């Protein structure tokens, strides 16, 4: 053991009193924002489910849920969850908490820009949460806000003030993401400690890096599109409006000859990379955690780095698969079908690497390990329907049905949430100095896994049977469509019960948090016997030297997964090479 190091405290815990530009403070603040969004988004989703199963149910203190209110719920739920939970928490919350530690840096590259990003994100969240309270209520266009309706203020009750606030919130969000992404990229490029070569970066850092790299083109293009939509709404332009249009019985003329399709292209050029931004950090963390508890190196480590980058690259080439039925040229349809199916290759490579890493090992089934395995399971279950939706012919039928909702909830929403829980359980000892209870963790895991599948697997069936998404009510429809939807009601009720169960399954986690946080700090410095830098013990710094910039520079000597063949001993990245290890 290096004489300068002590095992008593981990680095994060001995950091000086946090200023509000400190990455740790900011990381926790990002997580706080996401928690608010998660609670609100969950509540809204339960309201949606209750309304779908019992359309006549009236919400206490409010009354019946009107169709436009249902659409408002959908819009707010999707926006909160995708943007404010699954983008902020894994990428900027855990990113800020862990990136500097994992690369051996003492701070992010631009701490004050980091704080600016946080303030912008907070502004965006408050703007969004204020939007239901303006006249007309919140926007009703879904998280994709397709024109022409989103561009015309008289198109619906929420399309005036609510839509404006929605657009403002997303614009703030895009700006914040750009600032945060620049900070993240500059940090990973310039702040790595001596010895931390690119191929020694943990795959988590590669996940954050790739997601940040994707954020820049994605959110820039979104910003451009928002600019145009804003001027269509308020400056009488027609970027996205055709020359003539009938809306709410009124004939509307526009000066130019724009096209709603243009928005679809620009939006999905952002939208598809956005869903990868949401899952890439989880993908990286799953690889590292599986390896850690299987006590094996990640199978094909360097290839996995390339695969992460490849997923990112392909992710910006597939946006057209959201537009198969929107009037895309058939040639473009085939192109996008091929590029989309090409993503299945790197995605399968990830899965193969995960399986090969744990195959035949005797993994310790701790709570983080369980959540990592859960992530794998959901990623496979959700990913299998991807190539199905990627066929233009099949998508004719499936587009805008509950089948798509099932697909993206499994692969993105549930996998993303499992990634967040994985991060929480795994890094809790580091962040709070305490271990979350393993028994409660198991209960939480199995209940959540069961709830997730019970909720989202049946949605495939509803979609195959023809239930469209974004429909407020399945009863009271005339004709054969009405019969079809009525037959689905028992399934709807099951899904709603399952969703309530899923929400209730989070209570053990909350209880676990409360219990653990009120207990003593008992976690050892490296409870998972992990190899990456964030678990390195803090160097002892004599006070008179603490101010010196050169004191106790962390150094990296090996790659991130060095375990002995029997898995009993390991070589952490911070430990100098004393004995000769097999060449990496």
């Amino acid at each position, binding site marked *: 053991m290096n004489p300068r190091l002590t095992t008593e405290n981990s680095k994060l815990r001995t950091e000086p009193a946090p200023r509000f530009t400190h990455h740790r403070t900011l990381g926790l603040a990002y997580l706080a924002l996401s928690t608010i969004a998660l609670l609100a988004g969950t509540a809204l989703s339960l309201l949606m489910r209750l309304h779908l199963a019992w359309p006549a149910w009236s919400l206490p203190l409010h009354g019946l849920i009107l169709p436009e209110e249902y659409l408002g719920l959908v819009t707010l739920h999707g926006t909160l969850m995708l943007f404010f939970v699954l983008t902020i928490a894994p990428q900027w919350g855990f990113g800020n908490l862990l990136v500097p530690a994992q690369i051996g840096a003492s701070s992010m590259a631009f701490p004050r820009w980091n704080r600016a990003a946080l303030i912008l994100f907070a502004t965006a969240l408050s703007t969004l949460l204020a939007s239901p309270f303006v006249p007309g209520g919140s926007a009703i266009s879904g998280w994709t806000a397709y024109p022409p309706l989103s561009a015309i203020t008289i198109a619906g009750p929420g399309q005036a003030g609510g839509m404006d606030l929605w657009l403002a919130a997303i614009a703030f969000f895009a700006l914040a993401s750009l600032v945060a992404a620049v900070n993240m990229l500059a940090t990973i490029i310039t702040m790595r400690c001596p010895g931390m070569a690119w191929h020694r970066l943990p795959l988590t850092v590669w996940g954050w890096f790739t997601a940040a790299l994707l954020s820049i083109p994605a959110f820039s293009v979104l910003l451009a599109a928002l600019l145009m939509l804003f*001027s269509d709404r308020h400056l009488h332009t027609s970027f996205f409006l055709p020359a003539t249009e009938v809306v709410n019985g009124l004939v509307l003329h526009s000066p130019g000859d724009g096209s709603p399709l243009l928005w679809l292209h620009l939006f999905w050029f952002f939208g598809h990379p956005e869903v990868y931004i949401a899952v890439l950090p989880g993908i990286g963390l799953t690889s590292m955690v599986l390896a850690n508890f299987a006590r094996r190196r990640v199978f094909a480590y360097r290839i996995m780095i390339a695969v992460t980058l490849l997923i990112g690259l392909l992710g910006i080439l597939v946006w057209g698969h959201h537009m198969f039925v929107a009037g895309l040229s058939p040639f473009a349809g085939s192109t996008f079908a091929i590029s989309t199916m090409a993503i299945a290759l790197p995605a399968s490579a990830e899965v193969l690497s995960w399986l090969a890493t744990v195959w035949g090992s005797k993994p310790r089934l701790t709570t983080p390990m369980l959540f990592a395995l859960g992530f794998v399971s959901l990623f496979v279950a959700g990913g299998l329907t991807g190539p199905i939706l990627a066929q233009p012919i099949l998508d004719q039928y499936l587009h805008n049905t509950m089948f798509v909702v099932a697909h993206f909830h499994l692969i993105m929403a549930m996998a993303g949430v499992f990634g967040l829980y994985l991060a929480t359980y795994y890094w809790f000892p580091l962040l709070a100095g305490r271990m979350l209870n393993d028994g409660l963790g198991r209960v939480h895991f199995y209940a959540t896994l069961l709830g997730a599948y019970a909720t989202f697997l049946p949605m495939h069936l509803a979609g195959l049977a023809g239930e469209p998404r974004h429909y407020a009510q399945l009863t009271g429809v005339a004709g054969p469509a009405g019969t079809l939807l009525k037959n689905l009601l028992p399934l709807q009720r099951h899904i709603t019960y399952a969703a309530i169960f899923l929400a209730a399954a989070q209570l053990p986690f909350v209880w676990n948090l409360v219990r653990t946080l009120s207990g003593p700090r008992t976690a050892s410095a490296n409870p998972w016997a992990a190899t990456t830098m964030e678990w390195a013990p803090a160097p002892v710094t004599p006070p008179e030297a603490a101010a010196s910039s050169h004191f106790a520079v962390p150094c990296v000597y090996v790659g991130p997964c060095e375990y002995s063949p029997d898995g009993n001993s390991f070589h952490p990245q911070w430990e100098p090479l004393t004995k000769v290890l097999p060449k990496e």
Partner: protein
Amino acid sequence: MPATLTPPQLEPRRVIDTPRDADNGAGGRPPVDKRTGGNGDDGGDDFERAAAGRRGPRERLATARIGLAFSLFGILLIFVGLVSAFLVTKSSYHVDAYDRVINSWLPTALPTILWLNTAVLFISSVTAELARRAMFHEQSIMDEWFGLGKPTSKRATVWLAVTLVFGMLFLVGQWVAWLQLQMQRVYYASNSSGHFFYLITAAHALHLFIGTALLIGALAVLRSSKQFATRQIWVDTTVWYWHAMGVLWVALFVLLDFFQ
């Protein structure tokens, strides 16, 4: 740049090891770190011996430049978004009730003052570059380091001020161009090409406006900052930003003038 991509195996040969390793634990005075952190120290600006983020002025400059490069990439992509919308709209058509294919694009004739504005912006880039070079003029840096006045900052201040004047001239020129178009009854909302002309030029003007704010910031830093490195970084990144906006303008101007 020195090797941040590090050699495969690193001996812990940091300076601070020496006193501590020599300490045999038998008591005596604790090791005292006498270094000031300046460039005169051994390892002062050495990328491998210092902690990331504390490797001296050269690292700060490199980090700032990398941050700037990614920001410029983002800005570029905003314009890629706008320009691709422009190209698509220009070449799109609809089919009317009589089965005729209609492309309703009416090109906007650009005001000639834009040529003048382009020349002004070009000159401003030259003066900006003179300011930047002044900040990196080795002999004056040495003079300044020895305390013989602030020759670099003085020269850079003059050139930056000139750049600021030309930059504002450009913005005024753009304003005039919009007024001229409006006198010909071409408004933002008139038709598709009007939409794109005004939107693209305004988005660019906004970024140039941010550039003038940066110039003012850099001038303020030149006056007030005691650290030479800070002044250098401000001038350097501001000027690179300015150049990038100049190049962007030329590309946009060519596009709007010749590809309508």
